[in-house]
């Protein structure tokens, strides 16, 4: 039985760690995100329609589109959910590794990847997942590569929030404001076997373009290289630093300031921002298509 999209949207949490963590980013992207939950509420907010018959018709068409596997929406949902839960596993591994460095459980270091390397892979795979999920949801809009890039570039609301969270929670907090050069150096020095050991990669590898792990790694590296400029500019323009990002979180995660690598791992385990905002993006796009097709 496939998942019901209207229930997924109805069940999105209104509060909790994920919502609080995302709200803490409001100071970097003010007013971009309001936590839009509830299927009918999303229909009304996105389309401006309030007539119950119209809302029902839009909802029914959106559900029909989602339930047709060929339309790609279910794959995008799977990607958003999997990359979050797989990186949660990575967080657990990173925590184990951190414990290993601090205590007698030193042997754990031999079986866990170093947090920084794991974090590097995690960040770059989440970025690639975004591009792939975008294509499943929107197709490849426009007539030229330029059109496609323009479409990718026009990120707003929850999609921009997802990117802000990626840069902040998976980049700046665990790796520092210069995370992009660290990540690039790290993935360039990696082999396919490093990638294959990574739980986030294992989770979504079948959806990453490329015939084998080596070509998938090349795709990941290329994607990271091409988006690096945007990420650096975003961090600089918004003034995102480790301390400003952690300040926002310290209100509800006590003691987070002194243990940044623990914090990164903790966020990985407990904050499902990809799935949360991914479902919001997916429903918004479905609804925009449904109302236009009716």
């Amino acid at each position, binding site marked *: 039985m496939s998942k019901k999209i209207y229930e997924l949207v109805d069940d999105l949490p209104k509060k909790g760690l994920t919502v609080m963590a995302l709200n803490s980013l409001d100071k970097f992207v003010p007013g971009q995100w309001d936590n839009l939950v509830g299927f009918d509420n999303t229909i009304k907010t996105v389309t401006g329609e309030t*007539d119950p018959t119209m809302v029902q018709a839009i909802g029914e068409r959106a559900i029909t589109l989602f339930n047709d596997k060929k339309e790609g929406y279910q794959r995008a949902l799977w990607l958003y959910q999997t990359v979050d839960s797989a990186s949660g596993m990575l967080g657990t591994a990173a925590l184990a590794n951190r414990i290993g460095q601090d205590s007698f459980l030193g042997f754990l270091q031999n079986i866990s990847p170093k947090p920084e390397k794991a974090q590097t892979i995690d960040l770059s795979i989440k970025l690639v997942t975004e591009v792939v999920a975008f294509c499943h949801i929107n197709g490849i809009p426009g007539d030229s590569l330029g059109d496609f890039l323009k479409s990718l*570039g026009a990120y707003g609301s929850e999609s921009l929030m997802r990117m802000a969270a990626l840069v902040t929670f998976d980049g700046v907090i665990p790796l520092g404001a210069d995370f992009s050069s660290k990540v690039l150096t790290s993935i360039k020095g990696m082999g396919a076997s490093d990638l294959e050991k990574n739980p986030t990669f294992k989770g979504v590898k079948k959806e990453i373009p490329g015939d084998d792990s080596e070509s998938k790694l090349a795709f990941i590296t290329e994607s990271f290289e091409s*988006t690096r400029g945007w990420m650096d500019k975003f961090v600089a323009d918004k003034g995102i630093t480790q301390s400003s990002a952690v300040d926002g979180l310290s209100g509800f995660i006590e003691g987070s300031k002194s243990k940044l690598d623990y914090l990164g791992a903790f966020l990985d385990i407990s904050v499902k921002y990809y799935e949360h905002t991914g479902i919001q993006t997916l429903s918004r796009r479905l609804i925009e298509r449904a109302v236009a097709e009716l």
Partner: protein
Amino acid sequence: MFLTRWLRRLAPLLVCLVLLVTACSTAPDKYEQVQKDTTGFGKPAAVAKQAEKGGTFNQFFPKGEGDYELIPSQEKKGFAQYKLNQDGTTLAMLSINDTLSLPAAAAKYDNATDKIAGYPSVKQGTTTLALLVNGRYQVKVLSRDQSFTEADRSAWLEKFDLAGLAELEGVPAPQAKKAPRLPKTAPQRNLVPQPAA
């Protein structure tokens, strides 16, 4: 006796409780029927096999002018959509869809009395103005900002290449193209933060 008296008092309470529980458990799921109809074996496809490929529609969309910018938004079989932006704000969504997948969408024009550029036109809800070309291709302008009025919707509908779209039917159907393939190389992404759509 004692028991009967208590039961008599409790009965109304119990009835209320039962009613409440039943009401909760049988609350109508207004999307249950469509969920049932569109899942499982033998369910109909959401998009007709013969529907025009979405990319074909791109050429008929208006072009950006002045500070109006058109940004490709979605392109799926039988459907293409653009955002109409001004200074980063989305004013409206512009779309073309093939009603082969959704005959009811075309049927609503049967009694249309209004016309735009000679094509039957209908208002839908409070934010949408639409017209139908050749009884098949639906063109819509949907406001996403209060400043974008019905007159604006009508003006932008006329900016589509409607005559070009009208010639589409009758042309031998282009070879069916596969679903959009993911790019083999990573795209150059240049994300620009924008206000909520």
